[in-house]
């Protein structure tokens, strides 16, 4: 444990008070807390035909970064590093994202890098920024994520496996397509088609309701982009400010009619798996003391994150292993968490993890999830932060958790506190 923790713990022996454990400790406000002073995302739009189908990932990111500057009013020169999680970009997207930051209005003194931890890249980006701040490497940073699955999703995403990798059975499992392995997991773990469909339908219904009530308004930063009308072939400028994957009228029964996608007798189909989408998200972070000095409004704080590995063929169980680990790190229990944002890669795996951990349904993804509005791979982890913090604020709740399974067999989870 760090010196500051020790100091406050020993200090509390004289003054009392601060040595609370568990949730009470989580809610304490200390000058060295890593806080979020702005968090936003673009709309999330359907891959291939949605509003962002003609927009490059870097343009999405530039838009989101510009949004962060506008919303927080921060002097861009104070931002020392930007980390962008992105999965499909060739070359890791490093060059485009550096360029995107310059377009967004950051000076050349603001460093930029990209990272790829598959579906948790956006969260990893935020965690990396938080850790850099905590370690004293930077004072202000942005964790972000982006994916343009319209322009970059395809067979080129994974290069050929060498003979060496193919000859190692567990290594070779790393490239089994996620739909196929999730189908197998659903079968092995006895997750019925009906329970998946009802979980997926409720994701749609929650998202429809949230969208109608305008609950996404606060988190979405509208972007003006070029869009080629597929019918007329005419290119026009449109403003995109709502998720276009959310469909009304989806029920478990209507989903029940869709044919399984990965096996004849399977249970997984397009309606109970995450959508292929485009989107970007960004989170501005700094120490509480810095935020107060700069007069930045504090949305919430980052507490801790966990990363775990699981067998590649069981990648869907990632949250089941990552969530208890982050509880251990933070000293809280599942009852202390008010809202869970668990990525719905597949209804099967999200449902299984929640049931296995005994998490209450009503606290999971209250505004719907990736099944309803999409999972732009690198974006999701950063997207969850704004979805979570704004919902916690709106409902007057405090403690939130974001988590996701990660392709090739990993899981991540992070604890956040809204203020």
């Amino acid at each position, binding site marked *: *444990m760090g*010196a500051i923790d*020790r*100091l406050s*713990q*020993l200090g*509390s*022996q*004289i*003054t*009392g008070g601060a*040595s*609370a*454990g*568990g949730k009470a400790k989580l809610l304490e406000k200390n000058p060295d807390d890593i806080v979020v002073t702005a968090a936003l995302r673009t709309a999330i739009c359907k891959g291939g035909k949605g509003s962002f189908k003609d927009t490059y990932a870097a343009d999405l990111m530039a838009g989101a970064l510009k949004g962060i500057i506008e919303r927080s009013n921060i002097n861009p020169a104070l931002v020392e590093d930007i980390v962008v999680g992105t999965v499909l970009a060739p070359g890791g997207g490093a060059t485009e994202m550096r360029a995107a930051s310059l377009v967004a209005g950051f000076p050349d003194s603001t460093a930029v890098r990209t990272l790829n931890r598959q579906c948790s890249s956006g969260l990893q980006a935020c965690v990396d920024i938080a850790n850099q701040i905590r370690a004293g490497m930077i004072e202000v940073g942005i964790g972000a994520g982006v994916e343009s699955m319209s322009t970059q999703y395809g067979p080129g995403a994974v290069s050929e496996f060498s003979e060496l990798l193919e000859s190692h059975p567990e290594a070779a499992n790393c490239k089994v397509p996620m739909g196929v392995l999730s189908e197998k997991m659903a079968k092995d773990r006895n997750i019925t088609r009906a329970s998946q469909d009802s979980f997926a339908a409720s994701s749609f219904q929650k998202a429809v309701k949230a969208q109608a009530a305008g609950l996404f308004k606060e988190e979405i930063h509208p972007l003006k982009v070029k869009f080629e009308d597929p019918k007329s072939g005419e290119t026009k400028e449109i403003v995109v400010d709502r998720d276009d994957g959310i469909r009304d009228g989806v029920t478990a029964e209507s989903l029940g009619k869709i044919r399984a996608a990965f096996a004849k007798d399977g249970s997984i189909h397009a309606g109970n798996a995450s959508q292929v989408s485009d989107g970007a998200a960004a989170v501005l972070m700094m120490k509480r003391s810095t935020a107060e000095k700069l007069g930045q409004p504090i949305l919430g704080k980052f507490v801790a994150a966990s990363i775990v590995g699981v067998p590649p063929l069981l990648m869907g169980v990632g949250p089941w292993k990552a969530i208890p680990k982050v509880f*251990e790190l933070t*000293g809280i229990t599942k009852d202390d968490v008010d809202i869970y944002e668990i990525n719905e890669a597949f209804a099967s795996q999200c449902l299984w993890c929640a049931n296995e951990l005994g998490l209450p349904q009503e606290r999971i993804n209250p505004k719907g999830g990736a099944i309803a509005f999409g999972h732009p791979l690198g974006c999701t982890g950063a997207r969850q932060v704004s979805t979570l913090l704004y919902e916690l604020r709106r409902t007057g709740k405090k403690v939130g958790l974001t988590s996701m399974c990660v392709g090739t067999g990993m899981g991540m989870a992070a604890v956040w506190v809204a203020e």
Partner: protein
Amino acid sequence: MASMLEFRTPGFNPYAVKYSPYYDSRLAVATSANYGIVGNGRLFVLGLGPAGIQAEKAFDTNDALYDLAWSEINENQLVVACGDGSLKLFDLATGDFPVMNFAEHKREAFSVCWNPIAKDSFLSSSWDGTIKIWSPSRPTSLKTLPVGNCTYSAAFSPTNPAIISCGPTLPLLSTGQTFAGAVPSEILTHDWNKYRDTVVATGGVDRVVRTFDIRNPAGGPVGVLLGHEYAVRRLAWSPHASDVLASASYDMTVRVWSDASSAPQPQPNTIPVGNQLGVMNRHSEFATGVDWCLFGTGGWLASAGWDQRVLVWDAHTLLRG
């Protein structure tokens, strides 16, 4: 306060001092660099001789040391609670390194206590909210008791090997028994009376030392001792007299008390208040450790504080009148 022996621990701030249960001339001090905030720890084993207090041995550790306990089965061994969450068993007869390392606690280990009855076990408490019971010969714990809160203090009963007590917010026994309305703030230290096997004294943030009788958990404290001006950091009942205890405090004093047990029957509905027998005010920083010598005429105490000093003195010199 004429005769007082002194030992300095330059560069290291003591957190605990304990007399050997085997020798009247040996004691050990757990210390930490930089007040235990960041840096190394050092365990001193001291000998009392005609030339004063001499260091017989010193063991260095990578992280701060917060507590120590002498082994009850091996006169050469003692275990320390370390800032990295580990417990280390040192042997005076072998080298500079621990003979056993017990690494399970996820945060700072803050107290250790050797079982005085079942002598093949000891316990530790930690800021990670658990108490662990260990065997000195096994690297993994025998049992983990989740307390849920950061525990500053845990101890075995000196008369019943099965009873464990701990802080931090209420005295709590391993039987699950808690004490009603007992202490309004964190308990930093507690100790079992050596003669009356149901009596426990607690001290902590609210500066008050309280005694409880575990036979009457709903009855509240059976005595209070008032006087410390800051939190009470360490308590030790006398091994020689059933009503006497010593306390070390963040107010830099060590005080010796008689609890109210020998007083005439108190008025109903009042909590008896014990007497302060004397104040030792020679420490110039937080007093963190105090322990009684088991041997001799009784009354010899060792105290330690953040002033980087260990003082050995006779409580009789404090007594008034």
